């Protein structure tokens, strides 16, 4: 029994953990997994699915590059009558999927919201009524980056925040630590005062932290938030540099997706939608997450 897996991206911290979860579960159950790297290319991903179909796999797991591109994938798999499971990102056609397709994912709306609300809370606790922040976005062509940035705007514009937060500037680091470092240094060179940095991912947050430390900024006075809860981020949090991050159970999602795929290939019924929630990570509960990602 062979199962084909198409991952959106290999060299992504979070997706690697998910992939490792899949792999471990596969070894445990003794199923052969063939994992392909779509390198963030929707078209390549669709081709990979067609290649799996040509090889006659018994089920396909897809970590979609683009959740709005899933219709064509569902169609291809349905035509060949091969079960399909989406993992980590919710497909657009979730309501019209055929019976032998399912998804296991988190709701991307939650991550940015959790993160920004916690930042608001920290500002409030520090007794501020108004705060200036910088926002570091991920790659602009990526949906997660767009969603998370939108969440930030929604929360600070909404009633839940309680503090008046001004965004001084909003730029992209393409998810990368290095560009985030340069970006932060450029911001520091303008001399404007700020109270926090919200980044779309942990790598960018760490880059900002490194730049601030190099310029002698007191890390206790700024709030820095990321998303992913990577090991580097947790270490930064332990060191008191990073204040907020968000954890999502990558390994759990991977294992869950494989379970569903195997059941579908045997013709068993599964629950079509499985949501796995995001969890907020702060210095208070960091201990629960150290061994997870």
């Amino acid at each position, binding site marked *: 029994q*062979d199962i*084909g897996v198409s*991952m959106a991206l*290999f060299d992504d911290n979070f997706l690697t953990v998910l992939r490792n979860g899949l792999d471990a579960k596969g070894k445990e159950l003794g199923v*052969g997994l*063939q*994992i*392909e*790297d779509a*390198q*963030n*290319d*929707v*078209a390549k991903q*669709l*081709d*990979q699915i*067609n*290649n*799996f*179909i*040509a*090889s*006659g796999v018994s089920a396909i797991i897809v970590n979609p*590059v*683009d*959740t*709005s*591109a899933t*219709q*064509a994938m569902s169609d291809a798999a349905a035509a*060949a009558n091969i079960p399909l499971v989406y993992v980590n990102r919710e497909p*657009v056609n979730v*309501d*019209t999927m055929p019976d032998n397709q399912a998804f296991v994912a988190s709701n991307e709306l939650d991550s940015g919201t959790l993160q920004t609300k916690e930042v608001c809370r920290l500002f409030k606790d520090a007794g501020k009524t108004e705060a200036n922040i910088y926002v570091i976005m991920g*790659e*602009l*062509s*990526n*949906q997660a*980056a*767009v969603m998370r940035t939108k969440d930030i705007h929604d929360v600070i514009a909404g009633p839940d925040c309680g503090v008046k937060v001004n965004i001084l500037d909003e730029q992209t680091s393409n998810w990368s630590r290095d560009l985030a470092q340069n970006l932060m240094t450029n911001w520091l060179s303008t001399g404007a005062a700020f109270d926090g940095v919200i980044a779309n991912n942990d790598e960018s947050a760490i880059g900002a932290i490194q730049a601030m430390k190099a310029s002698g900024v007191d890390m206790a006075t700024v709030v820095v938030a990321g998303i992913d809860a990577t090991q580097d981020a947790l270490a930064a949090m332990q060191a008191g540099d990073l204040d907020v991050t968000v954890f999502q159970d990558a390994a759990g999602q991977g294992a869950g997706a494989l379970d569903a795929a195997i059941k579908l290939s045997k013709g068993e019924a599964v629950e079509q939608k499985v949501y796995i929630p995001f969890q907020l990570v702060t210095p208070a509960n960091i201990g629960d997450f150290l061994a997870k990602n």
Partner: protein
Amino acid sequence: MSQTTHGLGGLKYDPTKKARAPEWNVFFALVGIIIVFELIGRLFMGDSFLFNTRDNVDTLFNQARLQIIILQVSIVGIIAIGVTQVIITGGIDLSSGSIVGATAMIAMSFAQVAMVNGNPNPKAIFGDLGWMDLPVIVPVLVGLSCGVVAGLINGSLVAYTKIPPFIATLGMMVTARGIAKWWSKGNPISFPTDSYALIGKGMTPVFLFVVLAVLFHCIMTYTKYGKHCYAIGSNEAATRMSGINVDRHKVLVYVIASGLAAFAAIVLSSKNLTAQAGMGVMYELDAIAMAVIGGVSLQGGRGSILGTVLGALIFGVIISGFTFLKLDAYYQEMVKGVIIVGAVVLDQWRQQSRSRGK
């Protein structure tokens, strides 16, 4: 006097010993790679790469595999047809991948349906303007115009400001990617009309690729346009002195190349039923590699569309072969790099041994 059909006397000339067309080498490389996959499959996996081994189907070949081999390269292949022409004139086009991204976004936004599953289209870009459910000709023309405009800019920069094509198209690459992201602020655009969805459905991309390849093969071989492409790539100054309007010709070449990239974007977005700003990343390098593997010289002046098509097929076979062999994804990239280099080394080596006199 039988020699006069070939020339004007002088040395002894034996027309039967004419050099083999370089495309043959590429063809042999393609066949060689297929045989290697087939052999590995038979020997180590008890499965066949090309032939059908499943009981529920009764065709000789594994049809699904033959189809995907061509299908997965036909879109980059369409781009490569245009890139080949640019390279033959001695230029290079790094912008095609980004033009795919930008065109896909723009064209798709004119191809959206009003209602999805009974709800208003959540991603409608021009929903406020009511520009939905437009006839398919609108997004196609809009898309092609994007390509033509990009090509005009590329071509004019190269022809009239005399900056290196590498830089002109690099600038376009960065700019077009920026436009793609800006168009819908990074959001993907989905839910096209049924008629738009037909353009890239099933094996249609393959059909379009083949038609375009044949068309441009004839153009490059039999028309003034083609002859002048080779002349410019061979010696631009001489071509200019021969009274050819090299600048205007170059603009035309870049317009055709970008037009084909835009067309590929339309097919691609239709095939995927979505457009996103990251589409087409690195396609320019794949397209160039296909052309060069197919024997097109980056010096300009030499190569053919046929060669590029063979180069594209080599790519297709490699990708499918890797999945067939269940090669670990980590190794796929490493091996792909080696095969690209290997195919060109082989070609080079055969050409050299030929020029040694036999």
